[in-house]
């Protein structure tokens, strides 16, 4: 096995006694001495700081210097409407293959900084980034530049109800940002960052794209606040699961379309037809027209036993109807929580199902997600 990559905060994680594990080719902190449960609850109650520098960041822009050309180019590869993005606006979408299967899910922003509003900024999953950048390079028309920023930029996320108070002490401008918008601002006299009001925990908070050379300094400044604790990937996973957010490689992959994955909301209205002009549009349109055979739903196990990934889901007659794709214990829900695919006729919330845990059927119901309410700041 090749050597694991390290983020610029690797030494900091080790110094904070993180338990380090291999993740997507990186040596990453899965938890700190506080432990997954307390880290999860701390994020929901105060503010958690996450190193997500393993994720891929890139900029896309057109040689002709217009936003329209860059947006049209990217719209050939994702179901989201990109052309209508206003400066500073951000959207969640997916890279699709020709069959409408999900190659990766990603965040797409139009930069808001003067002189740069023709540029798109993308954040993709660590485990997919090499393939994603190759996919973009392959299918972008001539005249489009893809500027991969892994060599220059780190990414940290500050999530939780106290995130706004903490970060606005560095620059009050971040206070007025609404969910899924971004600005480029100095957080100290010398540290400029791209700050977006977003994240993947269900909480209010920020993702901060920052130069490699500055990330350790800003991290230390943020950690001086008593409300801020470093949080590992373990709690990141339980937080996003409670928030009903998909994890690539588990809840979504090339075998499912965005519609099957419950991501209909991320496909803007005029992008729902078969001739919308992006890879996989025909599949998306067909699935919207009710031709998909399965859907991703929340699953609420009864009792305390968690149902893990790959747990079989059966109907009450013992027929297999699907499989759990993410499952564990939800510290905020105070109960086991899960999501998984079930055949279409079982998708209604409240439908009783059985989960086969260690050979024994256990009662569960199809549940409405999220399991912990979203607390995004919408102004």
């Amino acid at each position: 096995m090749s050597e694991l990559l390290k983020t610029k905060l690797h030494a900091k994680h080790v110094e904070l006694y993180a338990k380090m594990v291999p993740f997507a080719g990186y040596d990453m902190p899965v938890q700190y001495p506080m432990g997954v449960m307390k880290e999860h609850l701390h994020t929901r109650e105060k503010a958690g700081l996450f190193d997500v520098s393993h994720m891929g960041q890139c900029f896309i822009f057109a040689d002709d210097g217009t936003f329209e050309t860059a947006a049209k180019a990217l719209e050939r590869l994702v179901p989201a409407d990109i052309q209508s993005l206003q400066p500073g606006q951000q959207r969640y979408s997916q890279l699709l293959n020709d069959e409408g299967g999900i190659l990766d899910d990603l965040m797409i922003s139009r930069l808001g900084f003067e002189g740069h509003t023709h540029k798109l900024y993308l954040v993709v999953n660590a485990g997919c980034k090499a393939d994603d950048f190759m996919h973009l390079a392959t299918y972008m028309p001539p005249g489009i530049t893809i500027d991969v920023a892994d060599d220059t930029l780190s990414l940290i996320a500050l999530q939780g109800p106290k995130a706004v108070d903490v970060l606005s002490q560095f620059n009050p401008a971040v206070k007025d940002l609404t969910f899924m918008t971004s600005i480029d601002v100095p957080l100290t006299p010398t540290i400029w960052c791209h700050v977006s009001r977003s994240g993947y925990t269900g909480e209010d908070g920020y993702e901060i794209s920052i130069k490699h050379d500055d990330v350790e300094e800003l991290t230390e400044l943020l950690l001086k606040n008593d409300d801020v604790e470093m949080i590992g990937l373990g709690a990141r996973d339980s937080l996003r699961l409670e928030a009903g957010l998909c994890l690539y490689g588990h809840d979504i992959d090339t075998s499912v379309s965005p519609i099957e994955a419950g991501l209909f909301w991320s496909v803007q209205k005029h992008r729902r037809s078969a001739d919308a002009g992006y890879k996989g549009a025909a599949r998306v349109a067909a699935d919207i027209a009710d031709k998909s055979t399965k859907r991703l739903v929340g699953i609420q196990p009864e009792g305390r036993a968690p149902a893990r990934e790959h747990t079989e889901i059966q109907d009450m007659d013992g027929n297999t109807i699907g499989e759990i794709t993410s499952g564990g214990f939800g510290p905020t829900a105070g109960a086991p929580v899960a999501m998984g695919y079930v055949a279409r006729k079982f998708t209604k919330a409240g439908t009783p199902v059985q989960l086969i845990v260690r050979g024994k059927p256990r009662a569960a119901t199809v549940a409405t997600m999220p399991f912990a309410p979203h607390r995004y700041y919408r102004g």
Partner: protein
Amino acid sequence: MSVKYTEDHEWIKVDGDIGTVGISPYAAKALGDVVYVELPEIGREVAKGDEAAVVESVKAASEVYAPVGGEVTEVNEKLEDAPETVNASADGDGWFLKMKIADAGELDALMDEAAYKTYCDGL
């Protein structure tokens, strides 16, 4: 009354022919916050090394193996509602089950407390 340990971090406290089984504080710490414990039915016969219980933390499920063979005579029902007891008192109130030891000779192959401490220090 003696306590013996396995390489999988179970302990068994022996009182006559009854053994009380749990996991070591070392194992409980490594697992992290315990959120669920699945206990065997009383009367079940287990052989040494059989899966006797399951302990689940936020992230993962782990098996608890029988340190020796025997018949399950009692389980710690308190763990069903308070699985966190395993973290709080792994070598005390967080015990999993009691068993009637079939062959006391199997205890000889297990580590005593000093040997187990040396074993953990080497991990």
